[in-house]
């Protein structure tokens, strides 16, 4: 008998084991919901699958009578735009600042301690300041995402640059490269896959900040909707929204991973499958 740590599941078993927790979660929910609804058909806490489907139908496939829009898609678009813009700007700023910090000792001396302090400010604590300075519209929400994620990416990029083997940077110099060429031909291409990894890790925080900002001040958005319908205890709306947000987050994470593997195959060599 092999040690437990050496036993690998076969492909079939692996799929089965992957599906199992999901199936169990659905079944447990279904049983609990059945039990509660049979006691009190008006119970709102655990709506049945038919009730949830009806709510999805109402929000996603029937147009709003007043505005003629589909709430669900409108919310999704608003949220995706905000998070995409926020994390995109964060990634660009993080990359540039991180590279400058990692590569140039003069810049590092001036900026690195400042950024470390900056990254320790709890973003939620300065949310009121953002609302006061940027108003209640788009800008404040995007700024919250940027403030929450950019310093982390900057610090990560800086440490990734300084972790590149010194030998490579010296080799490039002996081949006649200037600082600029070392930056764009040696450092940048090696740091891009690490940037994607860093963005994947900060996406969770980005969603957190987005939903928090939307909950407090917005006219549309996934977070806004959830907090709005909470007043009516509409679990039949909240649950599909949460599942949808999770799916979006997963899709982003997954596509960033695939993108990285596609563009930087040399980076993913030797990674555990």
């Amino acid at each position, binding site marked *: 008998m092999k040690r437990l740590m050496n036993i690998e599941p076969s492909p079939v078993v692996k799929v089965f084991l992957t599906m199992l927790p999901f199936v169990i979660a659905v079944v447990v929910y279904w049983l609990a919901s059945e039990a509660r609804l049979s006691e009190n058909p008006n119970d709102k806490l655990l709506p049945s699958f038919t009730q949830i489907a009806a709510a999805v139908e109402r929000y996603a496939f029937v147009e709003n009578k007043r505005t003629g829009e589909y709430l669900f898609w409108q919310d999704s678009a608003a949220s995706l735009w905000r998070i995409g813009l926020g994390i995109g700007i964060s990634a660009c700023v993080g990359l540039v600042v991180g590279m400058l910090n990692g590569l140039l000792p003069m810049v590092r001396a001036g900026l690195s301690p400042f950024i470390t302090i900056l990254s320790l400010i709890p973003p939620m604590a300065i949310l009121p300041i953002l609302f006061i300075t940027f108003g209640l519209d788009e800008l404040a929400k995007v700024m919250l995402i940027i403030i929450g994620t950019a310093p982390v990416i900057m610090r990560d990029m800086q440490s990734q640059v300084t972790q590149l083997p010194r030998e490579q940077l*010296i*080799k490039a*110099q002996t*081949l006649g490269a200037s600082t*600029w*060429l070392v930056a764009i031909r040696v450092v940048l291409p090696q740091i891009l896959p690490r940037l994607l990894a860093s963005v994947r890790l900060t996406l969770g925080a980005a969603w957190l900040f987005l939903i928090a900002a939307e909950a407090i001040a917005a006219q549309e958005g996934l977070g806004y909707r959830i907090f709005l319908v909470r007043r009516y205890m509409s679990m039949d709306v909240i649950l599909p929204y949460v599942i949808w947000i999770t799916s979006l987050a997963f899709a982003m994470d997954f596509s960033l991973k695939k993108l990285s593997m596609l563009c*930087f*195959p*040399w980076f993913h060599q030797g990674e555990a499958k």
Partner: protein
Amino acid sequence: MSFLTINNLWKSYGDVQVLERINLSVEQGEFVSMVGASGCGKSTFLNMLLGKEQATRGQILLEGNMLKQEPDEERGIVFQRYSVFPHLNVLQNVMIADEFTEAKILGWVLGSKRKLIKEKALAFIDAVGLTPALKKYPHELSGGMQQRLAIAQALMKAPKILLLDEPFGALDPGIRADMHQLIRDIWKKNKLTIFMVTHDIKEGFELGSRLWVFDKVRHDPHAPNMYGARVTYDLALNTGGQSADINNIVAEINQHEKNK
């Protein structure tokens, strides 16, 4: 005047005296092997030749001029590891050497210039025997192939000095022999001046035209960092090595080590 002159060179890191009173001169076309106990300052010496480290006292003159205080094209280097670019394939790794100097702003060269660079790169890749692996990335190459690639890169710049820091230390013996043949050919063909650090004294004898042994002359048992190493042996070797008295000299050096 010599090609390379080292005048009363001292190097310390804080309280630690690493090297002291080094006075040597080297002519163009010499192949200097450097051996010595671990931690005695061979890499430090090489890094000073490279311009990565600066001398605490004294100076190094290359053709009568002070060495530049940072790495440049005059001095090529091959480290034990990590001296190729993992994100570029073999051809790109070699071509980048000339792209660095031909495209100062964009870093990329196009058109007929690119063709010229490619031809030159292919010639050096062929010289180190990597033509079959042209499109492979470093992680797909064996240790020996990666070192060949690093050598080809360095040759692109036709450096005045080639510095090798234990270049074959991580390779197994069979591949090492191939690499010795390769480096000897390249040395002769390109009339390079080579400095090579090695832990393998046999290798030093076999390849070098000259052998330096780094060692501490003075010892203070209460303050081991007080004194630095010097070059205690400076032997001219019959080029090509293999002379019968190698074994005698090795024995003598070993004896000297033991007596301390």
